[in-house]
């Protein structure tokens, strides 16, 4: 069972995070103090950390950078109430692996933690990704479904790669926008939906099992069943 460390000084938020993650089958330790958080995180016992940006004792940025200095590569989800435009960049630069702004939807937070966990376990160097009868060859930049070649644009290849690397995982629209396009703003109208729909049209076909599912209220998931 993956172990998560939540470093969060706001009791209500800490409670919500812990409850949501436990519901999803994780073991959660929550601390409110920065120094205590750093001490626990330094043990390397955890599989992922949610880290508040503003903390008593020691600032979130300082915790992230000193963990990286100590060679602890536990993935970190930085959580910040600062709605600053460049805050995300600073958080990621300090050693955060992903960034989330308060207030957040709990399923979005959980989805991001799950992706971080998966990234840690998965072989990032894998060059051929497979799911059921779907196959993506990253060297040849070719995708196949049921042995039939799919003609994908470069961005569609990237989108499919992101889905395949996180197979079975719910991915929210903002996660997709950040991961595939590298942008961090609200792209307005159903932009991501349209891109996913376009990919889905190429993926699915008559007689084939649907693979790319819409998760109502959250985002999308690639997976059999």
């Amino acid at each position, binding site marked *: 069972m993956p172990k998560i460390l939540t470093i969060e000084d706001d009791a209500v938020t800490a409670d919500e995070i812990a409850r949501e993650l436990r519901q999803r089958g994780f073991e959660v330790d929550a601390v409110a103090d920065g120094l205590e958080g750093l001490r626990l995180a330094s043990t390397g016992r955890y599989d992922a950390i949610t880290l508040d940006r503003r903390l008593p004792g020691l600032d979130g940025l300082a915790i992230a950078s000193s963990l990286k200095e100590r060679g602890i590569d536990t993935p970190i989800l930085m959580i910040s109430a600062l709605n600053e435009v460049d805050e995300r960049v600073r958080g990621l630069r300090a050693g955060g692996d992903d960034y989330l702004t308060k207030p957040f*939807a709990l399923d979005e937070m959980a989805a991001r933690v799950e992706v971080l966990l998966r990234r840690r376990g998965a072989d990032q160097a894998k060059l051929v990704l497979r799911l059921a009868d779907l196959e993506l060859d990253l060297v040849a930049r070719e995708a196949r479904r049921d042995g039939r070649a799919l003609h994908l644009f470069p961005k569609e290849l990237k989108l499919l790669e992101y889905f395949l690397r996180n197979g079975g995982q719910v991915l929210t629209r903002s996660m997709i926008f950040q991961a595939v396009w590298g942008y961090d*703003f609200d792209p307005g109208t*159903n932009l991501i939906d*349209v891109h996913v729909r*376009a990919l889905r049209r190429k993926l699915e076909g008559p007689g084939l099992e649907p693979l790319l599912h819409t998760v*109502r*209220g959250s985002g999308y998931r690639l997976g059999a069943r």
Partner: protein
Amino acid sequence: MAPGSGLYRTTTFRLTVLFGAVFAAGLVLLLGLVYIQTAGYLTRRADRTLTAEAGFLEKSGPQNIVTILGREAARDPLDSFGLFSATGDRVAGDTRLTPAELPPGGGPRGIPGRPGVAPSRALSERLPWGEVVIVERDARQLTELRRIVLGALLWSGAVIAILGLAAGVILSARPLGRIQAMRSASEAIGAGDFGVRLPVSGRRDELDELAAIANAMMVQAERSMIQARTVGEGVAHELRTPLTRLRARLDHACQDLTPGDPRRPLLEQCVAETDAVLARFRAMLRIAAVEARGRRIGVGQVDLSAIALQIAELYEPVAAERNTDLVAESAPGLSVRADGELLLEAISNLVDNALKFTPAGGRVVVRAALAGGVPMIEVADNGPGIAEAERELVVKRFYRSDRDANIEGHGLGLSLVAAVADLHGFDLSFEDARPGLIVRIVCRAGL
């Protein structure tokens, strides 16, 4: 307005000139008085001399009067005499006057000068024995005196005028400089920089006092503006957390229902509505964050053509679904100093809008080009456009035109674009594409 013409309108200048004029009038009065007094005194003295001499001659006898006349004439070169018979014929003396011109017994009188002949005072008197004597005294000193006084008036007048003007100009230059500084400050405030204050020299004069009053007003105005602006942001910020929780509960309730439950669509609608409100709050806070960045902007060299191409690629599937053509037209090498991500966000908002408002079969162009030597990026569509009267309004927060009624959106997109343009010092303009709308960001080197 040229600073020179402003100089003559300053209070200091006017006061200095007024003082100069009053001083000059006083000087004219003073010199005039001196002249009148002196001239009167000189005339009276001449008249006394004339009367005394006439009296003296009266007392002499008809036998020796001619001798006495000659002696008197020799004694004072200013005096001249004439002795005339009872019938008016000259008996002796060198005066040019005759009893016919100057009848005896009229007291001393002024005789005007003629060219070559000085003015004089003269007295004509009939002697007890019937002869007439005329005594004349040269009065050229009165003319001299007048000349001297007038000369003094003229010269001192000229000097006072020049000194007064010079003093006025010199004394006005400094307050004028301060007013110039105040004007620049006011223009900056007018342009929206509410942190600017009018300069105070510290001399505690009336200009300082005025500046202090205006500055106090500015502090108040700035405070209320910030309050007015942040109250909305505060509300948005405060409501986001409870709304996020509300959304989570609605979502959970929705998940708990069996797929066929008739209440499910209703709950899903509630989640969507909550999402829309949250998106609106996010946009508001985003604009506030952009505006609050001020000069702390992450500038770098940004390629406008690359932005046009990226945006066109990003929105291509949306355009395809709406059966609209989306084209990027760009000239290479249009590099500007800007925050790339913010500019991209602004252009994506414009393209999003253009796609929403252009009917199926329409065309949207993202164009990066040089306009009069200045790099610009614009989004043009051939949709319904924006009426001239509405162009000012569309950048206002939450403004939605009548035509927007059936189109989803929160009316904040163009406000964000305006905030981004403003932050960079770029010009945002709307143009009629006949038909359609062109929204243009002209990237003048502002940063």
